């Protein structure tokens, strides 16, 4: 991180203007109440997304717009950030996505068009790296993970393990990069993401009927909640987990989200609350006049916004009831 936080003055000034154009809860509510997908589309063309959604000829192609919007946000942040490493860190997720896609495509012997052109490593280079088993250009942890994937798949042929290994490597890399950059806010974000993913994984693994050993394979280290803390709950009713986490910062989230999951058998509430939890955390850094916090927050805000738009469009195209959409809509950042 640059020593002088005022280096962010320009970036933050620009983010302030962009933040003001994020879609708010009100607008999402109106879109949910729209009678058809076309009406939602019309509302979008009256918003910040006018130019991109205005060109959409077939409503079913909305995904291409969402991914080009994502690409656009990364481009923008890359040009305004005084600290390029920040964007590189935030883009690592997409590198890992691309790695997963390429590995699976290779084992299936197919070509895939699922690459997301946002990662730090250009997709062309990534394709070559996987094709030639040459991961020198990747960060160390990812390189080691990629080699491990290769070894494991030849023996076990389990596609799930590809994801598990790479996810673990990703979050370890994220934590270590945030530490190296000495940005506690960023590290705090990743720690919370890790904890929330681990909590979710715990319940999922339990529902799938797997035990502690499997959970260990899927567990992401470096969170505030350790494996010892969570692993024990796998053989016990989730009620005890809710009690056990009652003293942590996730108390309300777990109490509401996991209880709802147990009652209704769907993780929708939990997942929404988990995303909202991250949003609330990032909001704390929103008004930092200088520093990377508003940039991180804006990126997340945009990702959540795209998620909400996708949810509404998919919901409207498939005529889901408004309630099903509303209960899943993530809180807006503004």
């Amino acid at each position, binding site marked *: 991180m640059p020593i002088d936080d005022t280096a962010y003055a320009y970036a933050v000034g620009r983010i302030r203007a962009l933040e003001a154009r994020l879609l708010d809860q009100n607008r999402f509510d109106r879109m949910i109440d729209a009678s058809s997908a076309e009406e939602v589309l019309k509302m979008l063309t009256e918003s910040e997304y006018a130019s991109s959604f205005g060109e959409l000829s077939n409503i079913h192609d909305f995904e291409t717009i969402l991914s080009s919007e994502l690409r656009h946000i990364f481009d923008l942040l890359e040009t305004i950030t005084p600290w390029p490493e920040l964007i590189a860190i935030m883009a690592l997720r997409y590198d890992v996505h691309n790695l997963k896609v390429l590995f699976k495509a290779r084992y299936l012997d197919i070509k895939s068009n699922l690459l997301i052109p946002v990662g730090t490593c250009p997709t062309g280079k990534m394709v070559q790296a996987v094709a030639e088993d040459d991961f020198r250009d990747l960060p160390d942890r990812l390189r080691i993970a990629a080699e491990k994937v290769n070894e494991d798949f030849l023996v076990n042929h*389990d596609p799930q393990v590809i994801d598990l290994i790479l996810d673990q490597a990703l979050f370890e890399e994220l934590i270590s990069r945030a530490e190296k950059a000495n940005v506690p806010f960023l590290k705090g974000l990743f720690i919370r993401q890790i904890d929330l993913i681990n909590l979710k994984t715990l319940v999922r693994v339990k529902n799938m009927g797997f035990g502690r050993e499997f959970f260990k394979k899927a567990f992401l280290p470096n969170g505030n909640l350790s494996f010892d803390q969570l692993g024990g709950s796998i053989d016990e009713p989730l009620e005890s987990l809710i009690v056990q986490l009652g003293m942590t910062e996730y108390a309300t989230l777990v109490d509401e989200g996991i209880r709802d999951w147990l009652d209704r058998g769907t993780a929708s509430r939990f997942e929404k609350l988990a995303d909202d939890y991250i949003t609330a955390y990032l909001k704390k850094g929103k008004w930092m006049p200088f520093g990377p916090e508003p940039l991180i927050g804006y990126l997340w805000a945009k990702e959540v916004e795209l998620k909400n738009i996708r949810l509404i469009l998919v919901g409207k195209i498939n005529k889901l009831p408004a309630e099903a959409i509303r209960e899943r809509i993530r809180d807006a950042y503004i």
Partner: protein
Amino acid sequence: MEIRVNPTRMELNRLKKRLKMAERGHKLLKDKRDELIRQFLILVRKNKELREDIEEELSGAFAKFLLARAVMSQDNLEEALMYPTRKLTLDIDKQNIMSVNAPKFSWHEDSDQDEGNSIYPYGFAETSAELDASIETLSGVLSRLMELAEVEKAVQLLSGEIEKTRRRVNALEYVLIPKLTETIKYIAMKLEENERGALVRLMKIKDVVRAKM
């Protein structure tokens, strides 16, 4: 009905034999038809049950899948499901239902998948938990889906066979048998007439002979 036969006793016997055969065939075909229909009804009932079951489960799974789709980006979702955890090999055999060759499916999972692997082909960090439930349902429904396909094909083939048999029964009952009966009647009449003619002729001859004496 135009009947062009030689009204001879030999012909009559031949026709009578044919009629008997036709009647026996008719009875057999009718029995076959009834049995086919019975089998058909059993299969249809099974088909209906299976179908309703599966449709309910599938529509549930699709609804869940849709929701998972709604909260995950397309790229993430497709990446998650890109590599199938299960590979099936399907063998098709014949099975004989009332001499109808219906397919018989048998399937087994390919062995390059290890036993311990889960049915979920994706990791947890980037996927929605709502996906799990739909994958689980879909995975459980697979074998019954095959069964349904098998039953449905059998039902289809049976209904074709029933149709064919019914046409044959009808042809025998309404065309061949009445025609044969009529022809037999005609020949019998003709023969009787000939007989009467011969009798009259004999009587006449008798009269002439008696007058001359």
